[in-house]
């Protein structure tokens, strides 16, 4: 579990600075490109917005230098680039919808981004060691499940676009599932680190796989029921898949037992199938997924079909920023921001975005591998996997790999809750990676033995 390194690792902060500047430059270029394509001139707010975004990214970089100087150097540039590209695309949809920049979605997203970065920085400052989080395992669990089920509470729960995954208080609406994802990852990590021995050792061998004892099945059954509850009552397959997938993956990492995956997949498949048989809204989702272009499906919703046609219109190289018609697809700036990118940046651009996501996940998993403590390992693996799963659910939903769900593309889609949650997720990952990459105190330099004078035996 521990990594012994004889080479003093570099902190990577300079690499991070250069790459972050690159990321901001790319975002600025995209913004200029968009302005030239739509109005024929460099957007007037370029200096203010560009410098503002640069300032936010650099501020976070400084916090990392100060509080987590050995944190992974690639995570911040990747996230800066994704978030910035998202801002440009949201602004692009604003333009297409005829919204001025002052009352557009993009400005709101920029404010949320700033707030999210501030909170992420605060997390880095306050949480000096990720193992602190373990103390709040059960609090996190309670908060996570509460948030998960909050949209079901009458009065504040709010159904939008067929899924009940929002809460609304006054004019303020929020998708608590995003925060729940974080809280539950902390809870699962803390809980599994405690119980992994019981869950991994005891059991019976069937068909070459060791199956757990019946009483050890309770946690997975609870997680299963909760995720089915999300599927059935909140009508959201994506969130359901995300939480249950997260749990099963972490369970597998904690116990190293493949049988958990078999059990998990079996349970989820059975549950989803029964839900499909019983509930009309699940059947509708499946119809839209499998028969997107059938008349019945188009009568229900042509959003997915329009998104697909948008992506096809982009083709391999895309129409170019500002040259397509992403606004023809409903929710082009949030749930369908991936097709918007596909249309204007083409398959190549979308590949680049997917690779950025994959890189981000890879950095997270690498952090997990390098971390010395079990809690950190589980938490990093869980958070990274949740990102990967969310990407899969979102991009897979709009490209017909799985049924479409109401989740947002991390860092790209418009939505404050998503930004807050994912920046905080990144802050925790950075914190763990700092721990993972920080060189162990040199025993030769720090210990009392080392302080003592070396006795030299003089040879004659």
């Amino acid at each position, binding site marked *: 579990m521990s990594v012994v390194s004889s080479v003093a690792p570099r902190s990577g902060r300079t690499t991070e600075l250069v790459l972050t500047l690159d990321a901001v430059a790319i975002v600025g270029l995209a913004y200029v490109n968009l302005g030239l394509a739509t109005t024929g001139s460099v957007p007037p707010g370029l200096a203010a917005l560009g410098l503002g975004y640069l300032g936010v990214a650099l501020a976070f970089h400084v916090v990392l230098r100060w509080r987590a100087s050995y944190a992974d150097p690639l995570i911040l540039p990747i996230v800066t680039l994704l978030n910035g590209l998202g801002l440009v695309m949201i602004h692009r949809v604003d333009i297409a919808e005829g919204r001025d920049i002052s009352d557009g979605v993009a400005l709101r997203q920029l404010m949320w981004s700033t707030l999210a970065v501030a909170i992420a920085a605060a997390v880095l400052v306050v949480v000096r060691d990720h193992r602190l989080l373990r103390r709040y395992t059960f609090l996190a669990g309670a908060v996570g499940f509460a948030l998960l089920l909050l949209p079901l509470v009458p009065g504040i729960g709010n159904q939008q676009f067929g899924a009940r995954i929002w809460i609304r208080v006054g004019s303020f609406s929020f998708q608590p599932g995003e925060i729940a994802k974080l809280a539950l990852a902390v809870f699962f990590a803390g809980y599994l680190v405690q119980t992994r021995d019981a869950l991994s050792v005891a059991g019976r061998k069937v068909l070459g796989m060791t199956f757990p004892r019946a009483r050890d099945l309770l946690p997975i059954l609870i997680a299963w029921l909760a995720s089915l509850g999300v599927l059935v009552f909140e009508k959201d397959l994506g969130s359901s898949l995300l939480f249950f997938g997260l749990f099963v993956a972490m369970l597998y990492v904690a116990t190293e037992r493949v049988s958990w995956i078999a059990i998990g997949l079996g349970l989820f498949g059975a549950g989803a199938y029964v839900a499909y048989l019983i509930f009309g809204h699940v059947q509708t989702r499946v119809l839209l997924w499998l028969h997107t272009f059938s008349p019945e499906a188009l009568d229900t919703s042509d959003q997915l079909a329009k998104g697909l046609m948008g992506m096809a*219109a982009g083709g391999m190289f895309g129409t170019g920023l500002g040259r397509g*018609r992403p606004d023809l697809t409903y929710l082009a700036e949030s749930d369908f921001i991936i097709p918007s990118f596909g249309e204007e940046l083409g398959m190549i651009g979308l590949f680049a975005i997917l690779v950025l996501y994959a890189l981000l996940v890879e950095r997270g998993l690498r952090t997990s591998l390098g971390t010395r403590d079990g809690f950190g390992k589980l938490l990093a693996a869980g958070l990274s996997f949740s990102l990967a799963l969310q990407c*899969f659910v979102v991009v897979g939903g709009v490209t017909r790999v799985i049924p479409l769900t109401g989740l947002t593309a991390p860092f790209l889609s418009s939505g404050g809750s998503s930004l807050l949650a994912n920046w905080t997720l990144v802050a925790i990952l950075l914190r763990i990676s700092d721990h993972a990459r920080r060189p162990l105190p040199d025993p030769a330099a720090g210990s009392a033995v080392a302080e003592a004078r070396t006795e030299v035996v003089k040879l004659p």
Partner: protein
Amino acid sequence: MNTPVRRLSFLVAALFAALLVSTTLIQYVFASDLNGRPDNRRTLLATYARERGEILVGQNPVAKSVPTDDEFKYQRTYDDPELYAHVTGFYSFFGAVGGLEQSENSLLSGASDKLFYRRVSDLFTGRRPSGATLETTLDPAVQKAAADGLGDARGAAVALDPKTGAILAMVSNPSFDPNTVAGHDLGTVDKNYQALTKESDRPLVNRAIGGDLYPPGSVFKVVTAAAALSSGDYAADSELPGPAELDLPLTDTTLPNHDGGACSPSGKVSLEQALVVSCNTAFGDLGMKLGADALREQAAKFGFGDAPSVPMRVTPSSVPAELDQPQLAQSAIGQYDVRVTPMQMAMVAAGVANQGVVMQPYLVQSVIGSDLSVIESAEPTELSEAVTPEVASTLTDMMVAVVDDGTGRRAQISGTKVAGKTGTAEHGKGRRAHAWFISFAPADDPKIAVAVVVEDGGTAGSETSGGAVAAPIAKQMMEARLK
């Protein structure tokens, strides 16, 4: 716990690989299918957003794209819409429908490969790509004369330049206003379009080159006469039987003349005289003697059975494949199941006019790029030699006699020798016959060949009635050209 994390990374890789595959499928493999979907609004908007080329008659655009403020960028508008509706077709939410809009869609839209180098240069110069302009061969005066002559009657008229095949006029009645189905309000456009498709007179059908085709009646006698002269066994003065009724073998029925009388007091007529008075019995007898093969071959040489693109596709005209003797006699006078387009009959007239050589008819004189350079120019091509120059010359003299002394007197133009042939095609008992006229002028140096059909315009049994209705229209068209 490192082993499961490593395995998890393989799962993550698989998930992302699935996304790369699905993206590739949508944006590359099936992209053209998705883009080609009729309900794909992006494709529609993209084609609308490009300035579509004009369709010119003379120097005037009869179809052009006018910039608009809405999301479609351009509105297609048609000048003199009813007069040119079947030439232009229309451009709407349903795509390009009918006429040049449909046939030359890729040139007008700018998507044609012929415009490839232009598109490449547009890419570098940043010029907005635009479609090519089509200059038609139409003579607005002839077109107008044809439409005015037809008036409210159902029917069609075609005029060709016999020496080149250039289409000088192509009119189909009733017509429609393409502007009503080219708007940007989907509801209105759809309503108007549905209304047009439901009209019993079927205004959307271009009767000149398509539709249900017409029996040609006596104008087909020109083809029969051509077959007779080409066989070498007949000359203009060859004597044919011309009784009041021709006994049809194998049946109890007879083939009568239009007026019920014999074609001459003696009961014998020359081939020329038979054409002049449009003698059914003489031509019926002639057909049976020539045989079905000779008749069919002669028709084919004039273009029967072909589906030329002008560039709109012309429905092939036909002489039935299996004919017994009585059917052959009927076919020789353009009845039974002989079916023609007015375009085909204009080609017959033009072929005789052009010393027996039928030229490929065409509607587009030149294709002009947005920078006014000529991309393509029509080159007259021979379709076939229908008859020898000698036979053509004899046929011309016979057709001149038809106009000078026979059923086609109404087509006479003072000072100009006109060659023509009338027809009154019966199509069902108790219904009025279609009135036909084909002609060309001047007979010694033809500048225009014409075919006119007026549906239900003639009186069954009266050959002169066809001449009376259709010949004046042809005359006006020829005068418009010769002026």
